[in-house]
């Protein structure tokens, strides 16, 4: 007994503070905090830099009403004037056609995954293919449509071909977000509907989809925002036109990304440079408005799951 007591380190009268951290550990902790905050700051720099640059250089043309109502018809890189109406309309028309084709397939596909094929092998294959489609680079989607539309069928390079390739890019985005939303719909709602004798398809259309509607709209907007900024398909599948062409099935068509691409080699000329930055700002505005709207819709229509 005495031996044990003697071996025990003598209590030196100081309060043993276990909550404190040794110097090295505290230093590491501080260092990690600094690095993590630094990573965030570094990540924010390009975003702010890009936004400030594009807004600063592009805003003054946007204040001009001509920008929104005129095309670049007959205007050379050295001359001022004209607007982006042709490109804005081109971008909107092509993305709207894309949405018209992609959204029904995406929503029905998501309904298949959540309501019909749940857990089956077929659904797993579909789900895997959606992941693959998510990863398909836009240039490969464009080449594929080029191969089918132009090489095999012999059609011309038109706006509709661009829409077809954008469908490949928009489809997985909308499908995945719709799937997530449908999964959030509580099973109680479905069961209540079944219990009333409502057939499955009516339950889906009248109960499940309306409940998840806000989320589906969010997904569609995010999908639209993604395809609007795509440039690669435009470069391969349609020529840039300075004139107003609202027909996606014939002739070349203007679009904001190709409008930027058209004049970017002439940035030394002030008029061309102005137009490039104004077009860039217009494009960012379109995409940002869609993004912000999507978030607002998502916030105010979230499925309340218990």
């Amino acid at each position, binding site marked *: 007994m005495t031996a044990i007591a003697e071996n025990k380190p003598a209590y030196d009268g100081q309060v043993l503070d276990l909550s404190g951290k040794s110097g090295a550990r505290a230093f*590491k*902790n501080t*260092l*990690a905090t600094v690095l993590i905050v*630094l*990573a*965030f700051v570094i*990540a924010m720099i*390009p*975003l702010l*830099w*890009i936004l400030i*640059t594009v807004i600063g250089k592009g805003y003054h043309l946007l204040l001009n009403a001509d920008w929104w109502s005129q095309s670049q018809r007959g205007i050379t890189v050295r001359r001022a004037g004209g607007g982006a109406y042709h490109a804005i309309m081109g971008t909107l028309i092509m993305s709207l056609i894309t949405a018209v084709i992609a959204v029904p*397939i*995406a929503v*029905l596909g998501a309904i*298949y*995954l959540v309501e*019909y094929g749940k*857990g089956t092998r077929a*659904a797993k294959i579909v789900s895997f293919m959606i*992941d693959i*489609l*998510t*990863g*398909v*680079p*836009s*240039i490969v*989607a464009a*080449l*594929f449509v*080029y*191969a089918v539309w*132009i090489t095999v069928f012999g059609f011309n390079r038109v706006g509709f071909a661009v829409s077809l390739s954008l469908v*490949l890019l928009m*489809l997985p985005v909308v499908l995945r977000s719709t799937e997530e939303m449908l999964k959030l719909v509580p099973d109680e709602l479905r*069961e209540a509907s079944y219990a009333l*004798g409502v*057939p*499955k*398809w*009516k339950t889906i*259309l009248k109960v499940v989809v309306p409940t998840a509607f806000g989320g589906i709209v969010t997904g569609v907007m995010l999908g639209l925002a993604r395809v*609007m*900024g*795509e*440039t*690669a398909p435009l470069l*391969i599948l349609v020529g840039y036109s300075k004139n107003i062409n609202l027909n996606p099935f014939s002739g070349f068509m203007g679009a904001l*990304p190709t409008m930027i*691409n058209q004049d970017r080699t002439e*940035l030394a000329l002030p008029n061309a440079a102005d137009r*490039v930055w104004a077009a*860039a700002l217009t*494009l*960012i505005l379109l*995409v*940002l408005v869609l*993004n912000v709207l999507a978030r607002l819709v998502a916030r105010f229509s979230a499925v309340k799951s218990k």
Partner: protein
Amino acid sequence: MSSPDGTAPPDRPDGTATNHADPAIEDLVHENIGPTPKFGDLAEQHAEHEAAQRSTEVMTETGVEAADSTPAAPETRADADRELALGPVGHLGDRLFGGLARGSGGLVVLIVAFVGIFLLALAIPALADDKSSFLFSRVWNPGGDNPQFGIAALFYTTVISSIIAMLIAVPIAIGVALFVTYYAPKRLASPVAHAVDLLAAVPSIIYGLWGILFFAPILRPVINGLADALGWIPVFEKPPGDDVGVVFTASVVLAIMILPVVTAISREIFAQTPIAHREGALALGATKWEMIRTAVLPYGRSGVVSASMLGLGRALGETVAVLIILSVPNGNDPWNPSIFAGGETFASKIANNAAEFDSPEKTGAYIAAGLVLFVVTFLVNSAARIIVDRSAPGAKRPRRNRRASAAEGASA
């Protein structure tokens, strides 16, 4: 008691309460209705039910959870489906709508298959005419009587620019994800996350413009410093001429572009770290960083790896930003492996030469290059998916339980 088609095993080792309920119902149906055309469905459902039950049992392994958690859920679902299948109401509508949904699912599969098949079909004739080794040649001269094209140089530039982008983006993305999940004040976290997501909303052509005009000049000292320090390695050797459109610049811009993807996924996985792990670490006296290093990072490791792979896939296929930034070397210049020289990636090469798609042979060469890009991104993305599936939080816990129960068994 075994089902008529023999799908269900006659006897089952564990005697949980549910095991007899289902065959009993089935028997009842069998006696009262007899073998109707729907019977196949029922047997199938039964088999499915059993398979599901068995898999949950395997997953939890202890059997305790299986006994008290599974009986109710699959039972009610199966009942609901049975009720529906028997009801005459809405049969046609269901078949139509279900068919539409199934068709859309099938369409997605078809589209992906078509992408591969069409690219392959158009690439093969061109590849057959290729007079040089497609995989190992650096020459790109697809037109004329003696077409020669190889992807070695394209492949090199594509891969090295994407890998550098990943090396830059992943540490920063992990930092941002940790900042959002564990460091930022609660009220700031969500706006910060949205702000990082906005990086993804900026169209790539604007990244390209900004990258070459504003970002490349400030990278010049970095490039010179790196070249001075590491110039003896060929990859870092700076060729003469002050060119801003180099692979390294493109890589940094790519890093910014993939940052939101990697951040978003890492953020999600970090936020899912079980609170018990975190509090356990803190209760043992860990500092915040030690808590993250011992609890959060190991839990999120596979998620971060798959997020990086998805980012890599995105970087491999990025077209326009790279196209604008990279200066294309002259045809006569010797090939330069340096990351401080210009070059072309698959995507930028294809987009750069869209005007050259005039003859089937030339088009075929570019489509062959596109096919290689498709295959590479396919492999990278599949790898990411496999890692996600293997390490999904749902799949992780049972494995840990198994280890825990094994340890318990050993100690007992």
